[in-house]
């Protein structure tokens, strides 16, 4: 009786609908995640453990402590230990007060907890030869990359979408042209852009040559390399954002745009005051998608600059890859991957929070 009523209930239908996803999610995502977390608590050499499973050593949070060292970042407060202690105490007090007051709920708890943990470890100045001086450099590079790619891609895609949101053969053709880059693999994209950037016979070099201007070394100059990768990525990513914006723009009632025009809103004013507020949910969705996607940048850095010069374009996922496969330190690489997951989770929670706030 109970079974038959369950089978006829909405609960059953709901579970039945998500079951195919769960079947794929658990073995392909959830299990590897927990396995990776377990590996992150071990000193685990890729080849050694393959041939001798007992070769791994449990080290608890050792890998996490190693990556928390921040000697090479400008904001490291290593020499100021009294200051560090005071700030750490303040942050802990703030965290405890927030928990007790329950004035804020949900995301803010996690957010402050994350900041407290991070700041405590960094400010306590856990330094020495054992820590990783490169991790925060690649985190900074990744943040710089994301900070450039996301707004630029969003802005370019939005402007293109507004320009192409009309009937006609040319608009349709151009929409296809701009979307075309999206279907290319990262290997093809980086190959195309290496041909563009080639200092000797590249596309830009050939454009500049008639004017007697020597092309800079886009991919080996540390002032230009990150910008070069960002430009290639914007070109690659703009198509998908464009399609989403076009879908959003088509939801704006025509009367609203006509009314704005009649009220004298044209050009930038119309975009900023009418169009963007009308599709703000799409803009947020595009930006969150881009953030999550571009935090995982790998191919552009690996194939265009090999992370160089020095570590100037080395990024988080490439560093994880190098640590796991070149250095064979799978345990440490898993710890970095777990922290990356936490970053991405943070952004997803922010998205969830923003959406919920708007709904309420």
């Amino acid at each position, binding site marked *: 009786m109970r079974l038959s009523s369950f089978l006829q209930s909405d609960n059953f239908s709901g579970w039945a609908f998500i079951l195919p996803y769960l079947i794929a999610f658990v073995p392909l995502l959830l299990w590897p995640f927990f396995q990776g977390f377990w590996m992150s608590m071990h000193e685990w050499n*890729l080849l050694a453990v393959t041939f001798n499973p007992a070769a791994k050593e449990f080290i608890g949070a050792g890998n996490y402590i190693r990556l928390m060292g921040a000697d090479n970042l400008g904001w490291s407060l290593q020499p100021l230990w009294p200051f560090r202690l005071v700030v750490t105490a303040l942050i802990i007090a703030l965290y405890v007060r927030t928990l007790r007051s329950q004035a804020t709920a949900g995301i803010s708890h996690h957010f402050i907890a994350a900041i407290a943990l991070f700041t405590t470890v960094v400010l306590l100045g856990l330094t020495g030869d054992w820590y990783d001086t490169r991790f925060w450099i690649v985190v900074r590079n990744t943040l710089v990359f994301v900070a450039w790619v996301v707004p630029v891609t969003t802005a370019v895609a939005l402007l293109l979408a507004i320009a192409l949101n009309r009937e006609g053969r040319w608009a349709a053709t151009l929409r296809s042209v701009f979307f075309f880059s999206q279907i290319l693999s990262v290997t093809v994209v980086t190959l195309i852009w290496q041909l563009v950037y080639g200092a*000797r*016979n590249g596309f830009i070099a050939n454009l500049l040559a008639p004017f007697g201007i020597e092309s800079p070394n886009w991919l080996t100059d540390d002032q230009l390399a990150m910008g070069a990768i960002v430009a290639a990525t914007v070109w690659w990513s703009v198509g998908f954002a464009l399609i989403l914006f076009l879908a959003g723009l088509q939801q704006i009632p025509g009367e609203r745009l006509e009314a704005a025009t009649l009220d004298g809103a044209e050009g930038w004013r119309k975009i900023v005051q009418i169009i963007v507020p009308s599709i703000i949910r799409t803009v947020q969705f595009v930006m969150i998608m881009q953030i999550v996607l571009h935090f995982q940048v790998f191919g552009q850095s690996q194939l265009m600059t090999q992370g160089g*010069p*020095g570590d100037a374009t080395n990024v988080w996922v490439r560093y994880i890859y190098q640590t796991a*496969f070149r250095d064979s330190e799978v345990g440490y690489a898993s710890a970095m991957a777990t922290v990356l997951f936490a970053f991405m989770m943070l952004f997803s929670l922010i998205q969830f929070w923003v959406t919920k706030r708007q709904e309420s």
Partner: protein
Amino acid sequence: MKLTKTLTASALALCVTATGAQADTELELARFFGDCDNAGTDVSTAVGEACIIQTIINAYSAEDNGVTIETLPTDWGNYYDQLKAMYAGNSAPDVHVMHKSSVAEFASLGALLPLPEADLRAAGINPDDWVDRARDAVTYDGQLYAVPMDMHANLWHINLDILDQAGLVNDAGEPILPTSADELMAHAKQVKDATGKDYLTADFAQFPIGVRMVLAMLWQQNSNVFDGDTATVNTPEAKQAVETIVGLFDAGYADPNLNYSDSQQAFLAGEAAIQINGTWMVDFYDSETANADSALQSYYVADYPQLFDQPATWADSHIWALPVTLKNDPEKYEAALDFLAWLNDHNVDWARTGHLAIRQSVLDSAEYQNLAHRDEYNNTVNIARDNPPAVRYSAIQDVLNRELQSVWLQGKDIEKALSDAEREINRLL
């Protein structure tokens, strides 16, 4: 009765069919060296590492020896990452190339199959014919783990026309090369003043040619980057070596921004007198002299010059190894050894790339000694050096490459870079 006859006939037919269609033993092979379009089986006409090795492989596969080889698609830059991933996934190739410098890592962790001398001899390989350095290259902890294929080293590839314009060619038509760091700068200035061209070019931006130059200069000063389990990077000798190279950049005699391909193009376009690169470029550059469009019409190749107290140049070896899992498949093991014997027999063909042969009988042969430009870098075999074996050699090389790049491409202070490199290498050792 009829049924019995039918079944017997069917069984016989199956046996005959099975015998007649016995499949070749298939070996999966992994290698770097790049791709070769339309590689055939005629080794004698192949040029360049990729085409020579692939034609040697194809020629073996085409033989009536019951073995077929599938060359797996691998990428040069990520070769060792892919190889490790294959090992970790229990899908290691049946035979693969690697460097001498990686033997310590793979052998110490039990990934490579030790190769008993008796098995090698049974397959037709005579290890006594290998020169000592080649035997050392494949030996770890007293056991043989691979079959050596070459010794390769850094050389000075020279455009004689440019040096001639600068008055740096002697009456015998040989280049006049520097004998000290000061003379290096003087020669570079001489070339710049006379021709307006760079003195030398190399990949200082990505591939670790710059690291290998610094290593050579360290060894020339009787120094090294590590000694046992202690890094010795931050030394006056290392500073001297890096300052020598940076001096060339600062004076405009070399461009640190060129990557491998760009430095090669610069050399072929006659924009630099010398390219520092490996033995693997000799046959390619030699063939380019026949190209009317190339600015490289008068090519010479020289041993790495002695700039400090003693001669030395960076060197390594390409070797062929089998995964430890192959011991469970005697048929494949036998086939793999047979293939290694084929490679060993074609040592002189491989040496045509410019690499140094590793078999004494080949080194003594007229065919080897008559190879193009061979007499110009005869002494390389005597001055070749490499770091002592280190389990994490590739990571150490990466640290050096990154820190040196940060010096000449990002203006990092030399002592700070050497100090940072030393700290990281100490952790890796």
